């Protein structure tokens, strides 16, 4: 029974945490992009605009949720939920810090410590595609159908590259469990360089980062929502909280790939001890710091690069990244065996 309540508390903390961080991600994005374009960004709601995410949420909640006449009602209403649930469920397997003991009970900082965590995460991200394609098809709107087709073709293409780019780190750790992958990165090279996977797996890391951006439909690969040609892509017809769910899902997915990148390539919660900070909190701080580097990188890219063309996007995946990922696996295998 105690086990049940501990898990329940963990889930509630995780759930609240992810939603809060995601809300402030929108604020952070607007601020960063604004600064990069010599603007100020939101600064009217609350001190330095800090209440902006709350105001946005309330606005979306009180907007009319509305179904177009020609839409397929059931599919249309189910789609945002189907995009949102897997986005959050992925977080169940992400470890945030080392195990610790409270009142003689060992507590791990992960909701479900499963042995196939990485496959589970990839599977969940595939389920998210259903939400997108159902939204496009269910809306019965040309922009939406085109956006959904583009999005699903892009997401499944890059999913192959994403999956293959992670195999090198699995070979190093010999496990699919995210905690084990982090533990395999303990220690240092030549005394001071951390033994993170990003060094031996630099090719895998680059491939992962590129395909993660495409996988989450972010700039410069944001063709599904190319506003200049498709208005908004698959969620054109959504308003109110249905739209909010797609938005939540997209930003949570950004957080997810940042978390996977930190865990698989940057040593997750490993990091030098901060004075006077207990070990578990120390781990969480490092994990969040590493994630925010990737998040910032996302926004930086968005305000720097123009959008790719669709043929460029597809040939980059199938003709460049896929052979590179396979080569990376072979080289990793040979190096691991003979060096």
């Amino acid at each position, binding site marked *: 029974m105690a086990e049940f309540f501990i898990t329940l508390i963990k889930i509630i903390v995780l759930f609240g945490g992810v939603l809060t961080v995601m809300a402030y991600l929108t604020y952070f994005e607007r601020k960063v992009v604004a600064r990069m374009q010599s603007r100020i960004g939101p600064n009217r709601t609350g001190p330095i605009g800090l209440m902006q995410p709350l105001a946005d949420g309330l606005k979306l909640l009180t907007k009319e949720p509305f179904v*177009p*006449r020609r839409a397929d009602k059931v599919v249309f209403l189910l789609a945002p939920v189907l995009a949102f649930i897997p986005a959050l469920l992925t977080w169940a397997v992400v470890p945030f810090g080392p195990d610790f003991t409270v009142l003689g009970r060992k507590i791990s900082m992960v909701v479900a410590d499963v042995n196939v965590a990485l496959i589970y995460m990839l599977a969940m991200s595939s389920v998210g595609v259903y939400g997108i394609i159902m939204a496009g098809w269910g809306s019965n*709107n040309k922009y939406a*159908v085109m956006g959904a*087709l583009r999005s*699903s073709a892009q997401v499944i293409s890059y999913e192959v590259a994403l999956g*293959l780019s992670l*195999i090198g780190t699995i070979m190093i750790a*010999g496990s699919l469990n995210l905690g084990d992958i982090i533990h395999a990165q303990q220690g240092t090279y030549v005394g001071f360089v951390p033994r993170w996977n990003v060094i031996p797996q630099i090719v895998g890391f680059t491939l992962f980062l590129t395909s993660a951006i495409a996988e989450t439909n972010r700039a410069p690969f944001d063709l599904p929502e190319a506003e200049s040609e498709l208005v908004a892509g698959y969620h054109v017809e959504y308003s109110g909280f249905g739209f909010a*769910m797609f938005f939540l899902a997209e930003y949570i997915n950004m957080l997810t790939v940042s978390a996977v990148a930190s865990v698989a390539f940057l040593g997750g919660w490993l990091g030098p001890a901060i004075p006077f900070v207990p070990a578990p909190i120390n781990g969480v701080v490092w994990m969040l710091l590493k994630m925010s580097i990737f998040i910032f990188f996302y926004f930086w890219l968005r305000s720097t690069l123009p959008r790719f063309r669709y043929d460029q996007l597809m040939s980059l995946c199938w003709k460049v990244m896929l052979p590179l990922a396979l080569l990376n696996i072979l080289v990793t295998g040979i190096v691991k065996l003979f060096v």
Partner: protein
Amino acid sequence: MPVSWWPIGLFFIIVAGFAATSLALSKLVAPSRHNEAKAETYESGIRPLGEAQQRSDIRYYTVAMLFVVFDVEAIFLYPWAVVYDRIGLYGLIEMVLFIVLLVGAYLYAWRRGALDW
């Protein structure tokens, strides 16, 4: 080591509950004013022409087929990567054979133009 999956089930119930409650709440507090023009499909303000649910480009279908081939390959590589330390050279040779076969099919698809957009 037994693996417990029930926390994910519990998480699912909480997330689905949140989604249902917030959608219901929004239905409750948001206004609902019906309007013929509003219920029309959005097509940049022009009267919608024809249906949107129609035949689409064959290339999306090709991509889906390629995805199945290569994602299944990736799934085969995962368990191989996990036990790679234990199977050593034998595993490497086996995997090189597997990948060479696949690369053959990949090159064929490339030459037939399946990868061109």
